């Protein structure tokens, strides 16, 4: 080992350690920012020391690429609204996949003779990178409503997918056995890109948290596979850390929906189950003025936010209302379902943006046992995560999914624009319950109305 490569590898060890410490610090809100900084520092060290590699002789292209890449990254990170965070993370995932794809492809077409092992892992990196890229783009399009969020299925999709997988395996065999024929490379990349699209198309918007964390995991796996191809330890370690985090989050999201990963990935293929059970009762609408009198008398208020709050950008107004309620002597808590929003923990970020203390945020399991004690539960733009059909209606597509039992609170206010169903497309018996009142209108306006009443 030359002096340079010894130094480079020693710094890689330091970087890997810093990545691990960085992730460790991310496990508490008070140290998380430091953890992220540590992780960024690890990346910086790794990049700087890599540039000492004596194989690197021309720096102009590198400098240009880094400058352009940084500019785009800074612009995107500064400009994005917190509500659009899922879209941005999805896009970043996509470019990460694209980067692994390019590295793997460059390794395959490089002039060096490659061993079969390196060819196989390069092909895997290429494949995962391409699936991550095209899958993320579709996820982004669905999240930003550039295409419909509902599952897209067509006749013969299952057959098409099986054929596609067979074709990918064949192309992999051809790339590994005849790496010099470029046609096979293009074929493999093309097929893998189509695969990514086919994986995400049949998945509906409500399952997006699962898809995003799965794609996040893939982007790590792609980096990991690229690490095998280049025999680079740091790529393997960092890639594996990301892969593991994605898998854990995917698992948490699946558990929160009481479904398996396979079930989520194939949900678009299942026929919608129609239930015999009728939802009875009438919908009772309430004006913000009347809601005010109830809130004024309330001792404890539970807020249950959903994607609708994000869309209406109502988090700041909610925080205002929270302060007025607290001045009035009420205790305000927030209950957050693991799959509320479009990515794991999305609601927490929005509420943090509005300066809501994280000590006031509770998870579903903490809230449910004492939900009867709340005088009022305010559901803001959440639908499926408070749907009692998950407990009561066998045959409902969401039956068995753990939900926040909002209907058991003494009073329930549902802030909603209209009577449309949630992303799961299921009717919600909560709206017909005795103790439920619907307050129709844009969530932000309704909350603003309540705030004004309190101020008067």
């Amino acid at each position, binding site marked *: 080992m030359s002096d340079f490569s010894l130094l480079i590898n020693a710094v890689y060890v330091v970087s890997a350690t810093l990545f691990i410490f960085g*992730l460790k610090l991310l496990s508490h809100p008070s140290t998380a920012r430091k953890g992220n900084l540590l992780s*960024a520092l690890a990346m910086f060290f790794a990049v700087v020391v890599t540039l000492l590699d004596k194989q690197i002789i021309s720096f102009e292209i590198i400098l240009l690429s880094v400058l352009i*890449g940084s500019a785009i990254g800074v612009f995107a*990170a500064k400009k994005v609204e917190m509500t659009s965070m899922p879209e941005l993370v999805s896009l970043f995932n996509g470019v990460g996949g694209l*980067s692994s794809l*390019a590295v793997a492809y460059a390794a395959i077409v490089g002039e060096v003779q490659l061993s079969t092992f390196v060819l196989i892992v390069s092909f895997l990196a290429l494949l995962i990178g391409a699936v991550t890229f095209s899958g993320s783009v579709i996820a982004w399009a669905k999240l930003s409503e550039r295409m419909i969020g509902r599952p897209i299925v067509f006749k013969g999709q299952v057959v098409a997918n099986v054929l596609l997988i067979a074709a990918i395996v064949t192309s992999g065999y051809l790339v590994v056995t005849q790496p010099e024929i470029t046609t096979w490379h293009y074929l493999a990349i093309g097929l893998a890109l189509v695969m990514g699209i086919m994986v995400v198309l049949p998945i509906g918007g409500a399952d997006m948290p699962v898809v995003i964390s799965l794609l996040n995991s893939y982007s790590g796996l792609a980096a990991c596979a690229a690490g095998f191809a280049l025999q680079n330890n740091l790529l393997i370690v960092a890639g594996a850390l990301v892969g593991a985090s994605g898998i854990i989050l995917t698992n948490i999201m699946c558990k929160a929906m009481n479904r398996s990963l396979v079930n989520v990935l194939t949900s678009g293929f299942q026929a919608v189950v129609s239930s015999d059970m009728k939802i009875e009762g009438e919908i009772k609408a309430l004006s913000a003025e009347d809601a005010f009198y109830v809130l004024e008398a309330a001792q404890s208020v539970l807020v249950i936010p959903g994607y609708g709050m994000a869309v209406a950008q109502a988090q700041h107004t909610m925080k205002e209302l929270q302060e007025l309620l607290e001045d009035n002597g009420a205790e305000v808590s927030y209950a957050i379902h693991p799959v509320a929003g479009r990515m794991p923990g999305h609601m927490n970020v929005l509420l943090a*943006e509005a300066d809501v203390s994280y000590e006031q945020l509770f998870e579903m399991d903490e809230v449910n046992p004492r939900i009867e004690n709340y005088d009022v539960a305010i559901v803001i733009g959440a639908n499926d995560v408070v749907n009692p059909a998950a407990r009561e209606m066998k045959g409902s597509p969401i039956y068995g999914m753990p939900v926040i039992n909002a209907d058991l609170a003494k009073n329930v206010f549902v802030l909603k624009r209209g009577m449309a169903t949630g992303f799961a497309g299921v009717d919600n018996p909560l709206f017909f319950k005795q103790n439920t009142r619907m307050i129709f209108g844009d969530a932000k306006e309704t909350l603003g109305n309540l705030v004004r009443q309190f101020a008067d």
Partner: protein
Amino acid sequence: MTAIYLLFILMLAIFVGFELIRKVPATLHTPLMSGANAISGITVIGALSLAGGEQSQWSTWLGAASVLFATINVVGGYLVTDRMLAMFKSR
């Protein structure tokens, strides 16, 4: 033999990853994901030697493209994570 040695590293890293991330509370799942995503931009160090090396034209350009994409991922990812975490002020 190299393959076995690399697999060994992979296995240990996966275990460390699981142990570390299992403890992250739901509050921090979004920043965790976007921070982890920034880490996946580590492919940039693989891309660097390809972009600056004396290989075929194709490899150089692919490497350069890869550096560009990975930099977007790294710089954007860390910045946006920091922006999010700055909102989780300690009280």
